[in-house]
């Protein structure tokens, strides 16, 4: 069995551009096809003996589509698949995985498969408690600092699968890992714009672990929670004006109206002053414009990495002229960190948009959620 799976794992191919279709004997059965309501970056097709996972948009403006065949380990010895049709063939459920972003950790924990994690780059960033415990026990191997993975250690670990993420598809470390026969799947959750679409990527992990049903119900709960919070927020007629981001030198960097930050603020019924911008990525605006538009803004959310009002004031006297600063209505998530210093918002925020939304409602309409304790955001002192 092990030999077969290793053999199958070895069959990695670079990008099959032509759509060769599937052999006739593998008719799509389409039952239990996990319906995706928000996510656009991946899809799953069910066939009789296997599933096909397609990753469509692993990084912005990517024109590549990756196809992976997922075969349950019980069925694997019995079927043959044409390796040319897929970028990789994987045996499910995955037993040894390496993920490369802290945003992948909550999904593993929610599905109760965090014990399959055998390596992670810069483990100090991980804050989620269950995984943190595994790391402290030495069960998760350190794979080097930041985005540059120590390829040698990774090859020695021999995971069945590496979940990577790419800014533009040029990552030499991932290329080397693939050449060595370890499949790398690019996770594109961060490319999605809607917060619920990002969260729906838990279904991507669900299918890798043959846990589609669990993933579905976890997501349904998050979705219901989110939509309910959104509904509560719509009950008030007055929405406070919101400023976001901060300057570096005299350029103010802030999320555009299409970003998930802006969508969350809109769903929290706050009036984000740049909600009508349509730029991709973040806005970089001149100080003058931001000052002119937002000096009277009531609330200032996420002032870059600043962790106190004092630090903000030190960085530039301009900041003190904003009403939100004068009223100490500045909120940030940077002070909420895990045991080893990782910012929990960066890790959990994508997987739990319901909590982020509630945090924002608590900030913008505190009267709506009286008993709620924010998970990420804190008023800066």
């Amino acid at each position, binding site marked *: 069995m092990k030999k077969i799976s290793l053999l199958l794992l070895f069959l990695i191919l670079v990008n099959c551009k032509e759509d060769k279709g599937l052999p006739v004997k593998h008719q799509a059965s389409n039952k239990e096809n996990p319906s995706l309501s928000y996510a656009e970056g991946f899809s799953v097709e069910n066939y009789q003996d296997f599933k096909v996972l397609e990753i469509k948009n692993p990084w912005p403006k990517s024109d590549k589509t990756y196809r992976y065949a997922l075969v349950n380990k019980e069925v694997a010895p019995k079927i043959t698949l044409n390796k040319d049709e897929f970028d990789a063939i994987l045996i499910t459920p995955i037993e040894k995985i390496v993920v490369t972003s802290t945003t992948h950790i909550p999904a593993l924990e929610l599905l109760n498969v965090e014990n399959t994690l055998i390596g992670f780059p810069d483990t100090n960033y991980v804050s989620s408690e269950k995984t943190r415990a595994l790391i402290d026990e030495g069960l998760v191997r350190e794979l080097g*600092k*930041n985005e540059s993975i120590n390829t040698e250690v990774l090859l020695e670990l021999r995971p069945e699968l590496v979940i990577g993420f790419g800014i533009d598809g040029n990552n030499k470390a991932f290329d080397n890992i693939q050449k060595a026969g370890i499949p790398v799947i690019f996770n594109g959750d961060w490319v999605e714009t809607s917060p619920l679409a990002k969260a729906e990527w838990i279904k991507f992990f669900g299918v890798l672990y043959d846990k589609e049903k669990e993933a579905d119900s976890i997501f349904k709960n998050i979705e219901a929670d989110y939509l309910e919070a959104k509904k509560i927020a719509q009950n008030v007629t007055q929405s406070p004006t919101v400023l976001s981001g901060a300057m570096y*030198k005299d*350029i103010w960097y802030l999320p555009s109206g299409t970003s998930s930050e802006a969508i969350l603020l809109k769903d929290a019924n706050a009036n984000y002053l740049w909600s009508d911008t349509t730029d991709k990525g973040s806005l970089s605006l*001149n100080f*003058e*414009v931001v000052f002119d538009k937002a000096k009277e803004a009531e609330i200032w959310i996420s002032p870059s990495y600043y962790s106190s009002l004092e630090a903000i004031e*030190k*960085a530039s006297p301009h900041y003190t002229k904003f009403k939100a600063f004068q009223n100490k209505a500045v909120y940030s998530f940077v002070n909420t960190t895990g045991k080893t210093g990782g910012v929990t918002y960066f890790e959990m925020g994508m997987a739990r948009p319901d909590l982020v939304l509630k945090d924002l409602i608590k900030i913008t309409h505190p009267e709506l959620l009286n008993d709620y304790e924010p998970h990420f955001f804190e008023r800066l002192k």
Partner: protein
Amino acid sequence: MEKKYTYPFLILIALLIICFFVNISLGSVSITTKEIFNSLIGKADNYIIQNYRLPKAFTAILVGSGLGISGLLMQTLFRNPLAGPFVLGISSGASLGVALVILGSGFFGGIFTTLLISKWSVVIAASLGSFLVLLAVMIVSSRVRDTMAILIIGLMFGSITAAVVSVLSYFSSAEQLQQYIFWGFGSLGNLSWNELLIFFLIYLTGVLMTIVSIKGLNTLLLGENYAKSMGLNLKQSRLIIIIATSLLAGTITAFAGPIAFIGLAIPHMTRQIFHTSNHKILLPAVFLFGAIVMLICDSIAQLPTSDYTLPINAITSLVGAPVVIWLLVRKRKMLF
């Protein structure tokens, strides 16, 4: 001052004043001329004019003229048209200091992280960096007589800096790298009045030292042997010129980031237009030219009426380099 230069200087001064007012009136937010005038004379309070555009315009003048002057000093001292503040390794030293502060936390951890917040730490690091490189260059230059050798040593310091920066970048987080890259874009609109005052005092010291060495500079142009035969204390003159350059280039890099092109190109533009190598003429002309070009570049970088600003560093090269090429091609011959 010779009479034939009176008109060109009057024109340049007029241009500087015009550019200064154009620079202040243009920006992303449109402000009426009346309001601008009123806030300039203190009749009205406009935060954007008084605390953003005015300090920015003054910074542009200091940066442009200071870089131009330090470029002129380097070109004369090394008798090399390619010389500029970057060549002595002064700017590289400043970059290294900034890299250590911004990127160093990934490498050293601990106290560096807390320093990150303060803008002054960047300024101090940059000044310290350029000063240390300068010190090293001076020690070497006291052993090596040849100015060419000093030039090459300066370039070597530049390479060492680049290498250290790339090692530091490797160990840095994305946010730190982003900060360092943003610093590299250069910025004029980042100084408060207090910071501007300190900037100005150091700048003034550098300029005064330059004025003192005008005679030495003119003599140096004729060759070091000639300068010696004229009874010029070569060692002392060289020392003063190097310190002046490092003060100017070091503080400018510290406060405004590494600004490309100006230091190299302004002296050439000035020589082409004024047809002289006399530093009594060149020095004020370079001052005016540098300030004017920087004000124009900044006005363009602000992309008036749009909400965006381009990195000043890109504009100085994009706007300035073709001008120098055009001047050189037109004259077919380089004045030096």
